[in-house]
């Protein structure tokens, strides 16, 4: 079960379908067939993502997306969770399917959007509904948008029929502003609230225990999370057109929540069209965060705190990602209904260095002295897009 990934995926998808809404002009009709592949830390996740978007008349655009994650990984023998940590433990396979539908309605300078997403796997069921309004103003130099996302999830556990609810509420505010002929500004604010069973039913924390049964010097106990989480994120993005026909992008995002996590994201990107039909992209992203208040790699004794977590996602770490992409544009003459097509390949290399998450699966070491974990992952995307 991929807890946080489920909600993350849903919100990201809402962003995809939501973000396509553009006041004044509806998004282009298109289809995208993407194959994604993630490989890192003993975890392999791959699958398709297919999107089709079509206008109905001149004022309505419909979009549908089908997404699958085929996950092959290892159950971490220490924490018992499906963590992508290298270990000699049992491997498992899991599949998650997500389907969504969205509609954009354009009236003058206002675009109304709404959509529904469902996500299912063997121990997690998610339902999300979202709606937004976006409006062009000031001679179409400014676009303001408001959005609301509501989610109803059921968190289960393999082997039991009972499920626990999880409710999500997100509010989004966006501003897109043309600054000069060559410069665009984007500002985004988002508040996300979650309530319910927020932890992973399989994952454990560890505490120092000289009499531990496994002889390793520590014992496991289930993690305990608060029942609510409220986070705020604010980001600013600039896009600049370079005179030799290229684009430079810069982005910063600040995040903080009621769990004590503070995250900073910095990203730089460069896009260069070449030889008429090729476009090359490169980007570097640096993310760093401080750990949640109730996070610890090793607690001093059993039930040391009301809330305890050992989830890597809540630890202190730095994530540096470097990516390259190539796009080839072609125009298939035999298919007259297809205006334009692109073939794309993107490769991202991610490296996360943890400041307080240790390789607890290594034996023969005093607990708390194991080396800090570093995750290296490769993310590949290969996709075909067509505009009609």
């Amino acid at each position, binding site marked *: 079960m991929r807890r946080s990934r489920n909600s993350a995926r849903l919100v990201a998808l809402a962003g995809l379908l939501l973000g396509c809404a553009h006041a004044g002009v509806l998004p282009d009709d298109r289809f995208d067939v993407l194959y994604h592949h993630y490989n890192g830390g003993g975890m392999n996740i791959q699958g398709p993502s297919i999107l089709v978007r079509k206008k109905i008349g001149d004022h309505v655009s419909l979009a549908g997306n089908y997404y699958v994650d085929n996950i092959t990984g290892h159950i971490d023998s220490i924490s018992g969770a499906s963590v992508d940590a290298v270990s000699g433990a049992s491997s498992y396979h899991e599949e998650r399917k997500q389907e969504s539908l969205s509609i954009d309605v354009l009236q003058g300078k206002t675009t109304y959007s709404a959509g529904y997403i469902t996500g299912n796997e063997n121990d997690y069921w998610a339902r999300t509904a979202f709606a937004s309004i976006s409006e062009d103003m000031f001679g*179409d130099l400014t676009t303001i948008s408001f959005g609301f996302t509501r989610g109803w999830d059921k968190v289960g556990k393999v082997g039991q029929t009972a499920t626990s609810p999880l409710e999500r509420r997100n509010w989004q505010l966006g501003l897109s502003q043309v600054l000069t002929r060559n410069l665009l500004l984007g500002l985004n604010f988002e508040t996300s609230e979650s309530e319910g069973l927020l932890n992973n039913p399989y994952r454990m924390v560890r505490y120092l225990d000289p009499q531990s049964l496994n002889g390793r010097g520590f014992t496991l106990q289930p993690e305990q999370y608060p029942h609510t989480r409220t986070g705020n994120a604010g980001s600013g993005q600039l896009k600049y057109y370079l005179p030799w026909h290229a684009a430079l992008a810069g982005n910063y995002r600040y995040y903080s929540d009621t769990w004590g996590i503070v995250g900073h994201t910095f990203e730089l990107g460069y896009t260069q069209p070449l030889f008429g039909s090729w476009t090359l992209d490169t980007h570097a992203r640096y993310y760093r965060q401080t750990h949640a208040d109730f996070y610890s790699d090793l607690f001093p004794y059993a039930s040391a705190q009301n809330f305890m977590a050992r989830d890597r996602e809540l630890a202190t770490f730095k994530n540096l990602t470097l990516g390259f992409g190539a796009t080839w544009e072609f125009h298939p003459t035999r298919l007259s209904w297809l205006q334009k097509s692109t073939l794309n390949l993107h490769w991202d290399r991610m490296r996360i260095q943890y400041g307080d998450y240790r390789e607890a699966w290594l034996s023969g070491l005093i607990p708390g002295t194991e080396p800090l974990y570093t995750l290296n992952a490769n993310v590949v995307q290969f996709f075909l897009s067509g505009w009609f």
Partner: protein
Amino acid sequence: MKFLSRCLFLLAVAVAPALPTSMDLIRAGAPAPQFQLNSNSGKPLSLADLKGRIVLVNFWASWCGPCRKEMPLLEQLNRQYRSKGVTLVGVNVEPDSAAATDWLKATPVSFPILFDVDSKVSKLYQVEGMPNTVILDRKGNVRYIHRGYSAGAENEYMDQIRALIRE
């Protein structure tokens, strides 16, 4: 943060009145401003040359989706009405005409295309949306202005042209 919002508010209030109001030079009944631009035939074309004819001036760009959508419909309009005293003129607003010329090779039109490379005519005609269509009567006065393009607009152009023909 409260300080910041107060600053923004004061800035907005201070700046707003200082901004210039729009002067409607282009309005129904006013004489259309004169201009002369190079055309795709190689020879310059001026508005004065078209006096006595009903003129539909369409401002467009190859990068503008609705503009591209409108062009074939304008071509149909041109074929239907040019023998009835109507001239269509396309004014391309791009500083670099290469993209427009390439697009016209793929989607040719039979009415003249003028190149407003330094945006003088766009400014003169107060182009506020893309595309922008201005219909002039035989006396050279502005009669109808269309900002943007939406499906069915070409029918409105036809109705308006027919009304001007009957005058």
